[in-house]
């Protein structure tokens, strides 16, 4: 509890960022994000954009898995749907990117809802495996519906363009990614201040009693799938504009696992968790690369980098689940509490 933060009204108590310090830090962060592209190298900008895409997708998954309790291993496939939507629209209609992105979200949403239908009968881990099935079926469609998806070779995408400027470099794309990521994350945070978010959590905690309390399971499970895959679709659309080549192999099951790992490591069922997890998991390989660079025999060690990366990926999942099940978000909260109370530590 923040010292001296007595609330004057219920409205103030319901606010998202309730203390002044919080708002100040938020401002600092915003300024830093605006300055970043002018000082960071191309590579770091590239990573930042990637982080943005991953944050959107992870936040989407967090809504479904972290908040609604429906484990999904289909997030990457839904991203694929979004990416293909963008690529196909770009190729056939040449619609502006903004419309393409919304369509990407929309189509992914529809597909997500179809995949969500079994969730009414199929529970828990059975559902998780059903989503694996869905992602393989989608992969099949990507690879074999040649007239639309270009088969295994996939499709290429022209750069997005805004006011006649082609967003073809990291620097330019950044100005699309950043605000979009912020808006999507804020939207998710808002969701959980209202009845819809509460209904999701209720379904996660005890779905059968939720129904008797007036929450239609059909409606809300599908809604959760819809919102979550909308996020994935938008992320996938951005992905398409970022890499500008979309193939069936671009969205492997491993990528879905990556997002799941991101929300575990970040903290399931908290918005901050999705963000921290996506940032952390995207940057861990970089950190590893740096560590490997310190070895005197760096060139020979390079061979071991990939296996070590795979292992570290697993160890992070396992380690967080065992030692810090609430993830980075919880660590962050503890740190904050410490500083708020400091020096009056109890």
């Amino acid at each position, binding site marked *: 509890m923040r010292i001296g933060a007595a609330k004057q009204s219920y409205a103030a108590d319901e606010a998202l960022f309730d203390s002044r310090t919080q708002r100040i830090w938020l401002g600092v962060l915003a300024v830093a994000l605006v300055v970043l592209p002018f000082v960071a190298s191309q590579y770091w900008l590239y990573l930042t954009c990637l982080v943005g895409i991953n944050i959107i997708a992870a936040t989407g998954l967090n809504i479904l898995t972290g908040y609604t309790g429906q484990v999904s291993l289909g997030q990457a496939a839904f991203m694929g749907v979004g990416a293909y939507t963008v690529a196909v629209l770009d190729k056939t209609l040449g619609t502006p990117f903004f419309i393409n992105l919304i369509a990407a979200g929309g189509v992914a949403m529809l597909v997500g809802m179809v995949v969500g239908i079994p969730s009414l009968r199929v529970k828990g881990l059975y559902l998780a495996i059903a989503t694996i099935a869905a992602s393989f079926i989608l992969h099949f469609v990507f690879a074999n519906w040649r007239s639309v998806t270009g088969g295994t070779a996939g499709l290429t995408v022209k750069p997005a363009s805004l006011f006649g400027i082609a967003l073809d470099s990291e620097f330019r794309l950044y100005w699309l990614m950043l605000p979009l990521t912020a808006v999507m994350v804020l939207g998710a945070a808002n969701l959980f201040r209202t*009845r819809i978010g509460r209904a999701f959590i209720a379904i996660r905690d005890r779905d059968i009693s939720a129904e*008797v*309390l*007036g929450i239609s399971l059909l409606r809300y499970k599908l*809604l959760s799938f819809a919102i979550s895959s909308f996020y994935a679709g938008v992320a996938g659309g951005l992905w398409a504009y970022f890499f500008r080549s979309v193939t069936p192999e671009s969205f492997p099951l491993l990528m879905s696992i990556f997002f799941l790992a991101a929300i575990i490591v970040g903290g399931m069922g908290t918005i901050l968790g999705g963000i921290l997890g996506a940032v952390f998991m995207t940057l861990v390989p970089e950190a590893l690369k740096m560590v490997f660079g310190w070895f005197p025999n760096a060139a020979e060690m390079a061979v071991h980098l990939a296996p070590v990366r795979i292992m570290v990926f697993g160890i992070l999942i396992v380690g967080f689940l065992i030692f810090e099940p609430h993830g980075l978000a919880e660590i962050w909260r503890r740190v904050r509490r410490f500083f708020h109370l400091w020096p009056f530590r109890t």
Partner: protein
Amino acid sequence: MTAAANPILEIDQVTLAFGGVKALNGVSFEVAPGSITSVIGPNGAGKTSLFNTISGFYRPTAGHIRFLGEDITQRPAPQRAKLGLARSFQNIALFRGMTVLDNIKLGRHCHLHTGVLDALFYYGKARREEVRLRADIEERIIDFLEIDHIRNAPVAALSYGLQKRVEMARALAMQPKVLMLDEPVAGMNREETEDMARFILDVREEWGVTILMVEHDMGMVMDISDHVVVLNFGEVIADGTPAAVQGNPEVIRAYLGSGDVEELRRKLHGEVEA
């Protein structure tokens, strides 16, 4: 007191079977508006099943349920909640990932209107609705049930008694016309039972809510009910005022037993010494 001319809830020849087991068999009774009606009966008699049927978790195999004169037998559970049927659960069913406040807010779910887009942007309507809800819950429910000190606590950390109270708060947030309580004082000691009894009486008096209750604590049931229904093997074996039911020999045989602790003590100890 028997059912008044216009019962608020009517159970009409309800039968519920699980495979071969008939949990309910032609159960009929009525609940008068503003009354406290208790359903009692041996374990496995079908009381919880009856509640589940009324709230829509089970569909009866036969029979009808009428609420406020309307036949709701075919309505899905969430709609019944919206009509004003709220309940608590025999095995506490709070949402353990939420705070007390959110649990209570959740109760109001079906009376709120925020849509997805409103929620994502949290502008005007959604915001107003949330703030109004918060005020209402604070002033009417949290104060009433004396749980203001725990409003931000996660429910998992609460003691059993408090959890039961939060369940009741959530049910009240549903703005019920009929409040169904499944064993509200099970596992409570005398003191807590008295607290709960007081809340039940107050809810009825101050809010005019009709109470339908399952309970095995005969002290409380016989004391505060207006009307008692006794189930056994899924059938109604007695139906009437507490006094009438208490004297019914069949009820005594199937359910109440001697009901006399002194006699029990003598029996136990007599045998121990023997």
